[in-house]
């Protein structure tokens, strides 16, 4: 191909997976195993594995492999399989655009090309919410980082971001970083959480904060960032029920570093560009029970679809998406008419998928809206109870999955999921 004259090279692939993290790897493997011989995975980093590469703590893979792996170890299980299956990967390649008819423009060192895909699996993951996104007032010193960026600097670049840190937000990355910074000799003053409960997993609260004597202040937020050059400290205040800071509780906490662990945003700019319908609650695409979006041949899975708590579930979900994408290119379509809507009811923040065919087994993923004890998750169709799962404790930090057999929804015209 001659690029000197400005002709854009075009290649064709049956299934193209965008993103080489846990979702992309599992999706590509599943598509290959479902018989699709022409799978291409596009990854923007130098190596496959995505965010797992900087997660050097353990606890990954308990469900899938029955052992506690580190992030890179978990990734390696899939990368090895990916390599064994001789699936094609383009590393250090960024997708610049995606069209509704599945033409992908990619840029890499030395090449710019178009890829025409039979099916596309979106597996781009998510990005971190920043200071700007949550509008923290104050000056603009250095020393304010998102927790994931700080983790990248520490674990991949051997760079210490600061010596005396506070953390806003008790999401899992923030908790992990509290421990990580402590282990490397920094002082972590406290973790502040605006909600009345932590948004991280209970095991991380115990293992990353309690075990190191790091206090977690609930109902508390950062009201100001102070410092002209480097961060000199933060102002924190308790919040009322309306989440507004209570002025008389405001105090100053000296520190040189503030890490933000205040939520993840699915990276769906390409998805929107392709004309895919979005779900306002999850921030991801609306998909059916084959993980296909409203745009035929475009599938989504993993954190770009909805933010997961455990990587194991990302892999499982992506495997399904990969299987259906392969089916789509082999048979022209795998979608069954999805006429049964699935709706979140009382106590449920969202359900995924939002519609099912009822003609194959499926899983409803959901998150509850608040922490509860001794409740049940109930799937209903009108007056009829389709499924009931008892939970000793329910927590918004945890994603819940309900496996349903197609027989259980025969004759249902709609499904609603509630906490009782």
């Amino acid at each position, binding site marked *: 191909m001659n690029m*000197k*004259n400005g002709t854009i090279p075009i290649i064709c692939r049956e299934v193209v997976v965008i993103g080489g993290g846990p979702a992309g790897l599992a999706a590509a493997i599943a598509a290959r195993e479902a018989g699709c011989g022409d799978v291409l995975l596009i990854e923007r980093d130098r190596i496959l594995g995505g965010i797992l590469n900087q997660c050097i703590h353990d606890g990954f893979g308990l469900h899938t492999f029955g052992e506690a792996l580190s992030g890179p170890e978990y990734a390696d299980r899939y990368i090895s399989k990916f390599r064994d299956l001789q699936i094609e990967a383009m590393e250090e390649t960024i997708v*610049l655009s995606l069209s509704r008819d599945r033409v992908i423009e990619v840029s890499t060192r030395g*090449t*710019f090309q178009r890829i025409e895909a039979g099916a596309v699996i979106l597996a781009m993951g998510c990005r971190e919410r920043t200071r*700007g996104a949550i*509008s923290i007032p104050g000056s603009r010193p250095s020393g304010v980082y998102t927790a994931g960026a700080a983790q990248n600097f520490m674990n991949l*670049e051997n760079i210490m971001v600061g010596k005396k840190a506070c953390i806003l937000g008790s999401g899992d990355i923030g908790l992990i970083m509290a421990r990580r910074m402590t282990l490397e000799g920094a002082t972590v003053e406290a973790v502040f959480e605006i909600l009345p409960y932590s948004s991280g997993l209970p095991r991380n609260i115990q293992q990353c904060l309690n075990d190191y004597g790091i206090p977690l202040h609930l109902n508390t937020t950062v009201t100001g960032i102070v410092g002209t*050059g480097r961060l000199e400290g933060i102002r924190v205040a308790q919040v009322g029920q309306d989440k507004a800071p209570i002025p008389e509780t405001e105090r100053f906490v000296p520190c040189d570093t503030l890490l933000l662990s205040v939520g993840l*945003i699915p990276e769906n700019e390409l998805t929107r560009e392709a004309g895919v319908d979005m779900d306002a609650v999850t921030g991801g695409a609306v998909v059916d029970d084959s993980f296909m979006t409203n745009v035929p041949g475009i599938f989504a899975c993993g954190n770009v679809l909805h933010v997961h708590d455990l990587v194991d579930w990302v892999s499982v979900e992506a495997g399904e998406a990969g299987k259906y994408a392969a089916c789509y290119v082999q048979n022209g379509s795998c979608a069954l008419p999805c006429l049964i809507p699935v709706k979140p009811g009382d106590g449920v923040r969202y359900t995924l998928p939002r519609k099912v065919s009822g003609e194959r087994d499926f899983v409803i993923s959901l998150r509850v809206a608040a922490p509860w004890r001794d409740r049940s998750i109930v799937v209903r169709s009108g007056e009829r109870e389709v499924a009931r799962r008892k939970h000793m404790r329910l927590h918004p930090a945890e994603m819940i999955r309900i496996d349903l057999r197609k027989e259980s929804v025969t004759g249902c015209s709609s499904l609603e999921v509630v906490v009782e």
Partner: protein
Amino acid sequence: MALEYDVVVIGGGVVGGAVARELSRFAVKAAVLEKEMDVGFGTSCRNSGVLHAGFNYAPGSLRARLDVRGNAMMDDICRDLKVKIKRIGKLTVALDKEDEATLHRLKEQGDANGVPGLELIGKDRMQQIQPGVEGSLALYSPTSSIISPYGLTIGLAENALANGVDFHLGQQVASITSLAGGGWVLGTKAGETFTAKVIINASGLFSAEICRLAGISDYVIYPCRGEYYVLDKRLDGTLKALIYPAPKKNAPGLGIHLTPTVDGNILIGPSAEYLNASEDHSCTADVMKELRREGQELLPEIRMTDYIRNFSGIRPKQTPPEVGGNKDFVIEDRKDVSGFINLLGIESPGLTCAPAIAEMVRGMVERHIPLHPDPSFNPVRPGSTFFFSELPAEERVSMIADNPNYGEIICRCEKITKQEILDAITNPLGARTLVSIKYRARASMGRCQGGFCVPRITRILRDEFGWAPEDFIKRSTASPLFAGNVRSVKGGGVR
């Protein structure tokens, strides 16, 4: 040893840069002293990025004359310096009878000022220009435009540098002494000494302080902060033109409004709040809330996830809060203090006026020292100062084939390539801060705010430029990014 110059410009903002570039057309030894580590770190890169048409200023005022002239000069300047400009025009909108009267008055004033193409237009034309805009009447000003304030400020400075002007960054003037036989000695906080036949005070917020160092105590600057929100590019294209409310009497600014930027974002702001300190670029909870409220009212499509950043800029006002409004620029060749050209109170529309101010200053300098044209002057800024992602695909393909660095994307939100990052790192002014890279390449200005690209830029600086963790600074040596390595690395080569 003092460094000797014919002319020393104090301040590397857009005005200082424009003056420096104008002087570089002549065989004169000139320097710019800038207290920050880069040009444009003050008000010049902290504003709406708007070129004003010139109808808001009283006929005969400096602002009226310089704005119309400056605006007309910008097409050539932006072409030569490769600065992004979009001539999108502006609707100043009336919501009631009082506003309508204001617009009629502004139209007459603008015509008197020589503003080209002004029109009072009714609802139909307004809807054609900006569907959905409210209001009964609007003043349409086709020369109102948007520009990259970073591009302009840096472009002027780099072109001045290329044509022989010295830039001394990190040099804050601490003393100014007049010499018996004429001329000046300037001492800086860093201990350097400079001599000059003529000083040009272009120090923005600090212009009254610089005056006092030279023995002039006539002026007070009242810093007045304007806060902004930056919105995600998702909303790019929503605004077809600049839309401003009709100005209210004695307001310190033009009112909170939405401004599209040349890069595709939208700004909400600016507020107006008088400060005690000249350098407090904080954003405050109350103003942020107010901006969100007003933004939502003006553009209901704004979602929570569209807010990507806040910033503030500070206007160097000559009018105290109890007076309000604003005063004409001071541009004077002091008679009592010979060889001191004073540019003071250059607030809005200073960005638009800068090149016209520079022409005026050149005339003043000429009274003190002869200015002979330098035949080697080249108005064109060399190098690739475009944004690669905005080029047509075919052109990008050829360029990537020639230079693989154009294929490597470092900032995924703004689609900035490695070559553009390298160009920013090796900028001719020698500015070596993270903000310098951001202002030049746009990296980290997008929705992830550097979460993705800053680690990658860090890797380039370490691996290809040999930076140690302590070399990384945000704006100055007082704002280090890192606290060393996590673990010491033995044996070298391994990291």
